[in-house]
């Protein structure tokens, strides 16, 4: 966060307009692995007592003290004999996400001198309520605990929930505890922000699928970590967060494949556990065909490792000097050692560089299309999630087999992008305290930056685009959806009787009109339709916008970037007053997708000359 908030435009101090008194009354519920209450990010210096609306408690354990910053703590992890049971973070993850959303501004934070700056949350003056649902002892987060956390967070009166947790795949709503809890939260005016998942770049891997949840994908920022490997005959650049300084000393290089006496060549090349021969690797730099097993080289006495990585868009932390290279760069190193009698190399300390291409969607970030509701685009939005430095737990090493202990560490994932959007949503709420969850979601989506189309299907990677907090304060128009709209949406999906009650919690029956409603007609800020492959198609989206900008204004529709035929009716309307609503339809037609192009997209932009209300329109072929 020493770079990410600046990158998205939410500058520190007076460079971003703030509403301090309302921000101080804002409570962010963080469902995660707990928190390190001793971190400077969570000190309560300068904070008054908790907001009057707060109905929570501090039940973190006798060793966990709340303060006027961390105003509440509850723990839902099971009691395990011999393990202290408290809301203290034993993973570092919860401290990281909480401080990203709402941590104090803490100066001179760095990772051993790297990424130096002021670490801070999106809303540093806000309060934090901790709901510990994950712990290493249970290897994750139980859904019965997560549902309890929602039950309490809603009752405690939090303003917003951030939950960087998910399943391996998208689930139907009635089996999805986060969707169930978030539905009840939405009904009480609480927006739930959820990580999209880390199973990209494969399509249809997004795990957070419900439209009442704000689903966040991950991007990088303009700061990137590079770790140079200097070979005997030149140099190549790799990726990692390497704080170890070997002072440029060159060491002999050995390939894992040739450094084993008890494994086959393929296993040894991967530096698989038990394969490397200590006598052959000790004091050397070891080449490994995968970053997964580099620790094995360390165990066997290697001074450093150069490894091949499938994902060179993300720098990882290792417990000894490591640089991760792309396949072609790694092949250059292999070629060098094969052509040299006594190959040598140095692995340098990392440096940070300015990445001009940012933001780019992270390769790991889960993609749409939505595996459960094909006509709802997910993820919704993208935010920085790669190489984020934020609060950590000093009791937890920053990587496997690491002996270092840090107050701030670097993590990557949609877990990290999720609290960025939670922070932005809270920031928007400080200017518009009465806005519903859908209004906040809409404001953030329709003002997002378009993300460079570096991937084949950019909307399935980035949703509406990259979060732009300052613009989101003044969206002009919003797409609102209430609890009854979501119920109509569920009715249209044939959720009836008991199944409808399962999600909504209420005994309702669907009206005929509700049962006929199409999911794509939910008043969502993006428009998506799955159409039969190769056949001509014509789909209509019905939408209603609410004026949250100026009175007496006229909006005109513009469709850009389209290979589709898009008709907007009406394509112009006038709004006399605030909160006035206008409905329109968007009809998209085409001769059929196929021939290698299975998705087509364009953007609908409503503008009055001052506001630009942008919605992606995505049509894609079934299968």
């Amino acid at each position, binding site marked *: 966060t020493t770079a990410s908030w600046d990158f998205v435009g939410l500058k520190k101090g007076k460079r971003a307009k703030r509403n301090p008194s309302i921000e101080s009354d804002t409570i962010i519920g963080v469902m*995660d*692995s707990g928190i390190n209450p001793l971190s400077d990010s969570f000190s309560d210096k300068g904070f008054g007592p908790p907001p009057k609306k707060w109905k929570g408690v501090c039940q973190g354990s006798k060793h966990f003290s709340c303060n006027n910053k961390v105003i509440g703590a509850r723990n*839902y992890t099971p009691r395990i004999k011999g393990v202290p049971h408290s809301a203290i973070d034993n*993973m570092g*993850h919860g401290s990281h996400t909480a401080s990203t959303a709402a941590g104090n501004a803490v100066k001179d934070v760095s990772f051993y001198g790297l990424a130096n700056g002021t670490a801070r949350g999106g809303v540093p003056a806000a309060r934090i309520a901790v709901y510990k649902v*994950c712990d290493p002892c*249970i*290897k*994750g*987060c*139980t*859904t*019965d*605990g*997560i*549902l*309890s956390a*929602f*039950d*309490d967070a*809603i*009752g405690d009166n939090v303003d917003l929930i951030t939950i*960087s*947790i*998910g*399943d*391996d795949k998208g689930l139907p709503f*009635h*089996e999805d*505890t*986060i969707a*169930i809890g978030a539905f*009840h*939260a939405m009904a*009480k005016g609480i927006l739930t922000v959820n*990580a*999209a*998942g*880390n199973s990209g770049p494969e399509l249809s891997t997004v795990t957070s699928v419900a439209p009442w949840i704000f689903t966040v994908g991950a991007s990088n920022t303009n700061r990137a970590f590079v770790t140079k490997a200097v070979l005997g005959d030149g140099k190549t650049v790799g990726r990692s967060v390497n704080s170890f300084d070997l002072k440029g000393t060159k060491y002999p290089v050995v390939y894992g494949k040739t450094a084993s006496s008890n494994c086959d060549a393929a296993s040894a090349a991967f530096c698989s556990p038990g394969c490397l021969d200590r006598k052959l690797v000790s004091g050397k730099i070891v080449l490994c065909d995968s970053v997964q097993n580099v620790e094995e080289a360390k165990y066997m006495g290697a001074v450093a490792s150069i490894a091949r990585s499938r994902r060179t868009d993300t720098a990882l932390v290792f417990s000894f000097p490591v640089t991760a290279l792309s396949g072609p760069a790694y092949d250059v190193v292999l070629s060098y050692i094969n052509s040299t009698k006594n190959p040598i190399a140095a692995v340098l300390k990392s440096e940070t560089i300015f990445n001009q291409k940012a933001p780019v969607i992270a390769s790991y970030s889960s993609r749409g299309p939505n595996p459960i509701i094909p006509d709802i685009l997910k993820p919704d939005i993208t935010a920085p999630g790669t190489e984020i430095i934020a609060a950590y737990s000093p009791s937890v090493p920053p990587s496997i087999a690491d002996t270092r202990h840090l107050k701030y560490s670097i993590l990557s*994932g*949609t*877990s990290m992008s*999720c609290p960025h959007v939670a922070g932005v949503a809270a920031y928007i709420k400080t200017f518009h305290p009465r806005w519903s969850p859908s209004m906040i979601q809409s404001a953030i989506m329709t003002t997002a930056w378009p993300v460079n189309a570096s991937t084949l299907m950019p909307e399935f990677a980035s949703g509406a685009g990259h979060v732009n907090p300052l613009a989101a304060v003044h969206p002009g128009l919003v797409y609102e959806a209430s609890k009854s709209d979501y119920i109509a949406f569920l009715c249209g999906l044939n959720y009836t009787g*008991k199944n409808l*009650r*399962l999600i*909504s*919690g*209420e*005994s309702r029956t669907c009206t005929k009109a509700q049962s006929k409603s199409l999911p794509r007609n939910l008043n969502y800020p993006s428009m998506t339709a799955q159409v039969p492959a190769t056949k001509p198609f014509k789909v209509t989206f019905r939408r209603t916008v609410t004026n949250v900008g100026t009175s007496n204004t006229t909006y005109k529709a513009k469709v850009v970037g389209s290979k589709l035929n898009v008709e907007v009716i009406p394509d112009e309307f006038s709004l006399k007053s605030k909160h006035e609503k206008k409905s329109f339809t968007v009809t998209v037609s085409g001769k059929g997708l196929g021939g290698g192009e299975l998705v087509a997209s364009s953007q609908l932009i409503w503008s009055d000359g001052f506001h630009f209300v942008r919605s992606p329109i995505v049509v894609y072929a079934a299968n």
Partner: protein
Amino acid sequence: AKNDQDKQVYIVYMGALPARVDYMPMSHHTSILQEATGESSIESRLVRNYKRSFNGFAAWLTESERQILANTEDVVSVFPSKTLKLQ
């Protein structure tokens, strides 16, 4: 085949909280759990109650007890608790 005596944690979801002022969720949970298990003491079975913002509970149940509860009036759904992961 799963032994019917094998217990696992199930979420017993009961939807919205009734609006009645005299409704006591915990005693309601206890009574339906007692009925489903046939046990008067359910302390070792009950994992947690959902009682503030919506209604339900989590409990250690066998497959046959799950089926009994799933067919109980007031119970919307019974599904196994699972472990999710940090992202």
